[in-house]
């Protein structure tokens, strides 16, 4: 499927928002498929308005050839991924599935995301009912992709979205303007203003603050926010948020240059 194909959503109340979507979002959902990682029904229902690709991966120790593992585990992996696809079908979304055996999870997720043209990647955490969305904006996020994603997921449903500009005190980034822009883009796409909160704060350690605040929300949507040196040591900020937060995190991918 190409990115500019029209949004196929059939529910009429979603059409107003869908019409303004520039690039229909496509979410990659990586699942450690043989480790019993599953996807909750509410999360599937929340993601269902968007196109979804489910990637079942299995990470192997280096001494195990991927071919050897596929001989033994392929059937189980395919069956497990089929179960997850079924969860999405029950929520009204037919998904594309991929299964991969790998020695390196990040390489596989990145490759498949690029391959299928995903605009966002889910970092799973257990989820209950999903209503309130926290959107920390720290600069490193594609505003159009973010707005397309939020509008697609939220316009037809309920719940609120909190646009929260958060930066370090000395950062060269106008958080308030960015939040205002994001709000504008969402309004363009049919998001009701009364469901949006916009605010901006500064923080010495944004990642920690995002993790703390995520406890009051059901899902976090953010950019990858890579800071080259720091990320190599500790992982991307989004990964650190996903590691610390209780809620699932949806990471908006940067456009390939």
């Amino acid at each position: 499927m190409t990115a500019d194909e029209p949004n196929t959503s059939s529910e009429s109340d979603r059409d107003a928002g869908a019409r303004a979507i520039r690039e229909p979002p496509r979410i990659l959902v990586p699942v450690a498929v043989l480790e019993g990682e599953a996807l909750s029904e509410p999360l599937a229902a929340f993601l269902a308005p968007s196109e979804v690709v489910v990637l079942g991966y299995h990470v192997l120790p280096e001494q195990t050839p991927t071919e050897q593992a596929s001989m033994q585990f392929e059937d189980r992996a395919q069956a497990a991924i089929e179960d997850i696809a079924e969860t999405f079908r029950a929520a009204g979304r037919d998904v594309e599935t991929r299964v991969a055996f790998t020695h390196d999870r990040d390489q596989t997720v990145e490759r498949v995301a690029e391959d299928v043209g995903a605009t966002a990647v889910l970092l799973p955490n257990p989820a209950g009912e999903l209503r309130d969305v926290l959107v920390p904006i720290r600069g490193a996020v594609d505003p159009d992709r973010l707005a397309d994603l939020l509008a697609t997921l939220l316009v037809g449903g309920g719940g609120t979205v909190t646009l929260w500009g958060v930066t370090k005190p000395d950062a060269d980034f106008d958080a308030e303007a960015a939040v205002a822009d994001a709000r504008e883009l969402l309004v363009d796409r049919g998001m009701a203003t009364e469901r949006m909160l916009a605010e901006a704060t500064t923080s010495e350690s944004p990642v920690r603050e995002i993790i703390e605040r995520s406890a009051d929300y059901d899902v976090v949507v953010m950019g990858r926010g890579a800071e080259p040196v720091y990320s190599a040591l500790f992982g991307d900020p989004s990964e650190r948020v996903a590691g610390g937060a209780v809620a699932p995190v949806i990471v908006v991918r940067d456009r390939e240059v």
Partner: protein
Amino acid sequence: MGTGTDVGAESTNLAGESPEQVAEPTAAEGETTVTEEGSELERTIGLTGGIAIGVGTMIGAGIFVFPGLAAGRAGPAAAGSFAIGAVIALLVALPASELATAMPKSGGGYYFISRGLGALPGAVVGISIWLGLVFATAFYLVGFGNYAAALLAEAGVPVEGVPVVVPLALLFGVALTALNLVGTENAAKLQNYVVGLLLTILVVFLGYGGLDALGVFGAPSAPERFLPFGPLPMFTTAALVFTSYLGFAQVATVAGDIKNPGRNLPLAMVGSVLIVGVLYVVTIFVATSAFGSDPLSRFGETAIVEVARSYFGNVGALAILLAGLLATVSSANASILSTSRAVFAVSKDALVPKVASRLNLAYGTPHVALAMAGGPVLVLVAFGEVEVLAEVASFLHLVMYGLLCVALIAMRRDEPEWYDPDFRVPAYRAVAGVGAVASFGLIAFMQRVSQVIGLAIMLAAAGWYKYYASDVQLKGVL
């Protein structure tokens, strides 16, 4: 059990198992292989990783075990022995590269020979290479034992007269096997750093030693006669030290994991042979210039430590001791992993019971194959004969190399439709022909006992094939 397609109803072994096909060997694109059921097999080893596997496997032997032994046999001409080895290794690395880019699958030489020449040569090579790697691993571990013992001696532990080499080697053999059984998360990354560190130490040491020997820092050392024992020992020594060049084929055993195999496989194989070949020749030159071959040979397996001591004092000796420990461990570890892959390759093709390719559910590691690697290694370590271990390992590999060249000629003569290598050997008949003759020829220069053991293993492998899997068809089966 598995999910691959059975190749043919007729093609079964004694237990009724058939070769399994997981993916078309040609279904490899850049970073993945796609199986018949549509699962993707990620390729995660880049060019650096590939070269690290090749260099890491090889460097332990040529620099840290052989200089003393080789100089004792051939004098300064030992440098020529290493050069002969490098030329033969290159002649084989080129055909191996072509076959590997046409069939980038785990299993390496065994896979090419079984598909190109048929199941009987395939079975003989597959089983011999398993045992050949077992001999090689045992050889590296005994080398490690020598370094560990020397380190203890350096630290002042009284080991004089106590046979500590074999117990230390056994201990480490058990430890390495156990480590691989329970999964080592970042072994490959670690391997890259170890190889980088080793190369740095060696370049500093050999650079200084080489300049010194040429007279830059004083009078040039009096050159010894190059061939003190005539030309024959140069060839018998080449047969002995060829073990130092076995590692490039290990790159082919992980071909299924190499990214962009069309480019990276040939570069990694040829590149690692060139790197270690140059280092070996320089090492022998420096070592024989520092001491002369006679005293060098008396230092035995750890001769290079004394060379370092003569240039850099005790600090240099300690650095080379540590480097030797790292190098022999990395060689042994890489060989254990290759062994387990070799076992997997023959078991997938039903030449040995399929239980050998089962994975451990708790750790996801191939525990049966690893046990079939580590177990026999320990028996051979206890045997402790460095030269015989090395030669038998070389013997079994050389047979594979020779047949691999023959397989290339066979493949090219009537090219099957799917045969589409990214890399083609120029003047393939000449390269592969000379490669085959040289590989088989080198065997003739080995000690009688090594030849007998090697031949016995091959005959046993052929006997096993006749008994267990004579109905299995592999030629041209992809």
